[in-house]
């Protein structure tokens, strides 16, 4: 963006602007684009979710406003704007006002480090992955503020549930993402995406693999297990249906949002949908190659850059468009999975949620970190690093090392899954037995 603005201002218009003006304008343009993208995504996602869930429930869904109901979200937005803003009399006014802002603002910051296409990222932070989750953890403060300031028991209960859930599922989410940092050797999201070139085998492991942009981390046993764990944890963080206990409408009205109306409620709604979009996008970025896909690498190699001054700028645009298309396609696919889960599964109880997180997901992700370390040791390290476990010289050697790493981590991960699943099933059976012994279980239906 800097180069484009520099070209337009100084070369085309001849304004001879100083460096900082160019930088300021380019950043403002990028920020403006991202701020425009976020609400538009929310508009589309709400429509998409309502239509998809309606189809699952054998209904039609909103189809009146605009072509096939496409303008329904706009109508909803207008309704939200015109609603009266009600603040409870006994609420803490200032905290009640600040809560939606604290909940929604951090979510928009998360866009800053999301890579949309080759070289298309607002800020390529060296600690992008950590930034993404550090910022998202601020939202929980907003939820707590909303729950407390409403002076409503339902709101407080919802906030408590939300915080307990988000805090305990942040641990498996972050632990399962650690493997990507080890694989890519960087916390920059751009570097993580760039490490996923190749064809089912990443070019970072075996450099001779053709680069079709398909060397996604999910094709390794380590990445696959981490993907499953992370996506479950992401559902809990985004408060999606199997884990939507913070706003369980059949139990506690609307959780922390109970006392909010009009635009303040819309802010929570916006924050939640942007968060879900971003969680899907980050899943696509870390496990499914982000903007990587067939053709992007070729377009980038044809495009104009410092290394390739003979390239055509049209290819820059095409590479960006194709990369963004791949990213959005993957993101919408994951969002569809979220919607499908909402249509298919009942809500968990809070104790089931905690049991699942602490007894199953966290041990599994910890074993997965061990597998990731073994993977790195087997595929990358030689005697030069002092940790050469297996060494083969030359190019086929890399492939052999990859196969050995695949087999070893597959065995470890399957064994870990099997062991933990059995342990949890036994634990569950024991608790059920304790329930029946205590006379607490619902008596089995007797035949009449």
């Amino acid at each position, binding site marked *: 963006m800097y180069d484009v603005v520099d070209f337009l201002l100084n070369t085309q218009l001849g304004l001879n602007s100083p460096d900082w003006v160019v930088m300021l304008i380019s950043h403002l343009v990028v920020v403006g684009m991202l701020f425009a993208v976020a609400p538009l995504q929310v508009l589309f996602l709400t429509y998409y979710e309502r239509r998809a869930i309606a189809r699952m429930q054998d209904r039609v869904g909103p189809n009146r406003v605009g072509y096939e109901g496409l303008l329904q979200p706009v109508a909803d937005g207008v309704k939200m704007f015109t609603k009266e803003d009600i603040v409870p009399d006994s609420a803490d006014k200032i905290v009640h006002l600040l809560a939606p802002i604290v909940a929604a603002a951090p979510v928009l910051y998360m866009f800053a480090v999301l890579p949309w296409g080759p070289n298309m990222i607002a800020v390529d932070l060296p*600690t992008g992955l*950590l930034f993404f989750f550090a910022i998202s*953890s601020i939202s929980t*403060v907003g939820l*707590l503020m909303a729950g407390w300031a409403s002076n409503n028991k339902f709101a*407080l209960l919802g906030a408590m549930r939300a915080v307990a859930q988000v805090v305990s599922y942040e641990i498996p989410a972050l632990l399962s993402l650690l493997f990507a940092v080890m694989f890519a050797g960087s916390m920059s999201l751009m570097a993580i995406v760039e490490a996923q070139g190749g064809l089912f085998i990443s070019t970072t492991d075996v450099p001779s693999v053709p680069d079709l942009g398909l060397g996604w981390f999910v094709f390794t046993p380590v990445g696959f297990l981490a993907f499953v764990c992370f996506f479950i944890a992401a559902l809990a963080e985004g408060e999606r249906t199997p884990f939507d206990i913070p706003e369980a409408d059949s139990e506690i009205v609307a959780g922390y949002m109970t006392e909010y109306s009009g635009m303040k409620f819309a802010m929570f709604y916006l924050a939640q949908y942007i968060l879900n979009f971003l969680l899907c996008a980050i899943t696509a970025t870390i496990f499914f190659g982000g903007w990587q896909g067939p053709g992007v690498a070729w377009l980038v190699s044809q495009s104009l850059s410092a290394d390739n001054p003979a390239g055509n700028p049209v290819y820059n645009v095409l590479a960006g468009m194709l990369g963004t298309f791949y990213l959005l396609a993957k993101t919408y696919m994951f969002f569809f999975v979220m919607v499908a889960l909402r249509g298919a599964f009942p809500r968990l*109880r809070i104790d089931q949620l905690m049991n699942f997180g602490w007894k199953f997901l966290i041990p599994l992700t910890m074993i997965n970190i061990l597998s990731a370390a073994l993977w790195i040791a087997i595929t990358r390290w030689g005697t030069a690093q002092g940790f050469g476990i297996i060494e083969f010289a030359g190019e086929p050697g890399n492939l052999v090392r990859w196969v050995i790493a695949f087999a070893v981590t597959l065995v470890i991960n399957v064994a870990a899954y099997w062991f933990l699943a059995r342990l949890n099933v036994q*634990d569950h059976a024991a608790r059920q037995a*304790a329930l029946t012994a*205590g006379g607490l279980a619902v008596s089995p239906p007797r035949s009449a």
Partner: protein
Amino acid sequence: MDLVVQIMFGVTGLLILGAAFMVVSVRNIIHAALWLITCFFGIAMLYLLLQAEFLAIVQILLYIGAVAVLVLFAVMLTRQIDDPDEPVLFQRWRSTLLITAILFAAVLVPTIYNHNWLIFADPQPAFAGPRELGFAFMNAYLLPFQIAAVLLLAALVGAIIIAMEDQEQRRVRVLTLAEEVALRGEREPSPPTRPANPQPASSSSNPTPPPAPEQAGEGA
């Protein structure tokens, strides 16, 4: 650029001091916890001014995302959040102030005088990036790093073990209302409550009143 950095440092410092003062002077303890979060934010901004972005992000992740949320969570469970009769200053606050001021000065004054301040020296390459920190942890500070890692891992594993512990002694799960009622009826076979019931005649006329709801349920 130096002037901009100085102004930002001044604003950040004022924010931190003001927030810290509000933490100890506000009556409502939830508001105090929220001001504490503001204070943590200010410290993260100071780290950013020092070009230590990794530390700034970790400050936000740990102190705001975990510590402050835990504090808020605990504070919200207390009953007396705002008591206007409770004095903010207790009786011996002057001597306390003196002692803490002396202790603070004992640490700070030698540091200020002995430290070689490099104010606005040449811009250094980022020395607190994750890579540099990782090398430092794995080379110079290996033993403290390992000890801290084992400690934290032990805490995490301990939490899992407590969760996995044999649960027969404890409440197995949150009970539904019907189960709670059934449990109470079982624990106290209710001879003391029944006589207090103001309808002995009806209970004698109906020989089996307790299973009535179950029968209704079966019929439905």
